């Protein structure tokens, strides 16, 4: 996989870091209006039309960092007034967390099949002959596709000897496995919140960076600045290696404590509890004659069933996700504590809106920008011992197959091993749910992961998922070794 960062990603991270820095310094309201220009000055941005448009786009992206939706602010509101609004609001958790920035959408072509200059008006006219709807005629020495007749079957493209007909799909639409993105009347892409499951795949797919998610950066920093209550970081199992090659889990704990977290706890701990509960639930359901049970840890997968297969909701495990499981357990002991989940996931932000136990959700990307904004460099912290909160089964939840492995391990001895359908990625999940609905699914358990590869491939990660998997495997082995050494 390519590790090259796009300019779009770099600018996004500069924006996050700058806004985080100003929030830490209590200068957000005072200085945020200067941020778009500061970023334009620091980058060689190839303007789409002019500096004004780039500035307008940066203003919209800054609004997302502030956690404000388009309909919460007036069209001409200054960033300063938006910052005041963001600092004053306590309602920042939202069930629909991904927004298309219409000012930034480049209105990519929506005609799916396009005849290019490579068309030579050959004698054979294979394209014309292949078309079942007579949509192709020859106009001005070139094949022409009549949009009213074209059914987008692709036979013309496949038949052309010169590959002169190409298939073009908008990257955002292509990335969306649930068909939630469609062009509006002006050709600007729109997200339908009734269909969107919040997985965030479109965010990184758009080459213009026109799609983003609301962040909880401002409220998280404000929580960390005060001393009235303790703030704990719940860090998702996918965190291993995310903060760079010279940063182990212990250094991450130290760094997060330096910016105000009192404790840093592995969510893998909650995952272990979830695996045990889910195994018990599975045995009970099977006794009651249920055919299939699905996992419930991935909020975008659960969202897929809720929004697109509501008739199949009964198959979803009632066990809470590891995040909610752990948060509930902590709040039962310490109701005064504020809990901030740090993970690879965009959909967790929407999940947090469904529970009172989570106070904010950050991605690894946002957390790293908050560290940098506070001047903390994790790589320069002295060597630290690794974290030891959780065992290998909980830690394994971060990659595809891990949930199943843990579930199987917690089944009673001798219990028949379930047949598992791995729904690895939202597209695979759609296929599995289609089969489930049609009653042709040959499996006892569906492990649903909206991101192909699991959480380590989530939209809020900072490293190549392949590298992340290798490091995670090592971290799981360490937990195993530790378990054996301590004899439990």
């Amino acid at each position, binding site marked *: 996989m390519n*590790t*090259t*960062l796009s300019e779009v990603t*770099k600018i996004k*991270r*500069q924006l996050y*870091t700058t806004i985080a820095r100003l929030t830490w310094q209590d200068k957000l309201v005072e200085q945020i209006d200067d941020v778009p220009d500061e970023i334009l000055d620091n980058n060689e941005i190839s303007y789409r039309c002019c500096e004004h448009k780039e500035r307008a786009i940066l203003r919209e992206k800054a609004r997302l960092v502030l956690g404000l939706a388009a309909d919460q602010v007036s069209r001409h509101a200054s960033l300063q007034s938006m910052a005041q609004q963001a600092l004053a609001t306590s309602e920042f958790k939202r069930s629909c967390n991904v927004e298309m920035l219409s000012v930034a959408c480049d209105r990519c072509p929506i005609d799916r099949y396009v005849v290019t200059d490579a068309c030579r008006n050959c004698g054979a006219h294979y394209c014309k002959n292949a078309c079942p709807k007579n949509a192709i005629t020859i106009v001005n020495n070139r094949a022409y596709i009549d949009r009213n007749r074209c059914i987008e079957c692709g036979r013309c493209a496949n038949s052309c000897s010169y590959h002169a007909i190409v298939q073009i799909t908008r990257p955002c639409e292509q990335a969306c496995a649930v068909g939630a993105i469609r062009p509006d009347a002006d050709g600007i892409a729109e997200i339908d919140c009734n269909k969107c499951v919040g997985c965030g795949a479109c965010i990184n797919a758009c080459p213009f960076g026109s799609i983003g998610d609301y962040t909880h950066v401002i409220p998280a920093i404000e929580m960390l600045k005060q001393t009235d209550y303790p703030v704990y970081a719940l860090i998702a199992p996918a965190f291993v290696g995310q*903060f*760079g*090659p*010279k*940063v182990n889990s212990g250094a991450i704990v130290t*760094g997060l404590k330096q910016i105000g977290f009192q404790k840093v706890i592995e969510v893998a701990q909650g995952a272990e509890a979830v695996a045990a509960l889910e195994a018990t639930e599975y045995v009970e359901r099977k006794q009651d004659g249920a055919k299939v049970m699905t996992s419930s840890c991935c909020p975008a997968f659960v969202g897929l069933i809720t929004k697109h297969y509501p008739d199949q909701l009964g198959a979803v495990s009632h066990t809470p996700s590891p995040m909610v499981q752990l948060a509930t357990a902590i709040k039962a002991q310490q109701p005064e504590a504020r809990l901030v989940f740090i993970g690879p996931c965009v959909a967790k932000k929407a999940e947090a809106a469904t529970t009172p136990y989570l106070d904010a959700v950050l991605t690894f*990307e946002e957390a*790293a*920008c908050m*560290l*940098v904004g506070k001047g*903390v*460099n*994790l*790589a*320069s912290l002295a060597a630290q011992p690794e974290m030891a909160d959780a065992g290998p089964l909980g830690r394994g939840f971060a990659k595809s197959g891990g949930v199943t492995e843990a579930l199987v391990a917690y089944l009673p001895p001798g219990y028949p091993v379930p047949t598992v359908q791995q729904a690895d990625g939202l597209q695979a999940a759609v296929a599995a749910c289609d089969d489930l609905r049609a009653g042709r699914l040959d499996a006892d358990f569906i492990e649903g992961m909206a991101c192909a590869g699991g959480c380590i491939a989530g939209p809020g990660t*900072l*490293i*190549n998922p392949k590298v992340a998997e290798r490091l995670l495997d090592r971290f799981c082995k360490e937990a195993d070794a530790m378990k054996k050494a301590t004899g439990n």
Partner: protein
Amino acid sequence: MQSVEVEICAGTACHLMGAQGLLDVTNTLKQTHGQRLQVKLTHCLGACAHGPNARINGTLYSRLTEEKLLALVNELLADNRGAR
């Protein structure tokens, strides 16, 4: 024969701005040049606001891209070959 030393900053700010990509291209280059190219990771090069940063034979370069880094390193490797 002179060698080229590349120190890539793995500080959090540089990590966010693409240090891993710089490391990957340099390591790939090392496969052809072996001992003549030394690659090191470093904690901080003191220019966190202008990352990703790398120091090549003692000179600091900021806001690097993979292309820029490759061009700089290749030039030095070629120069050294001439001097030999």
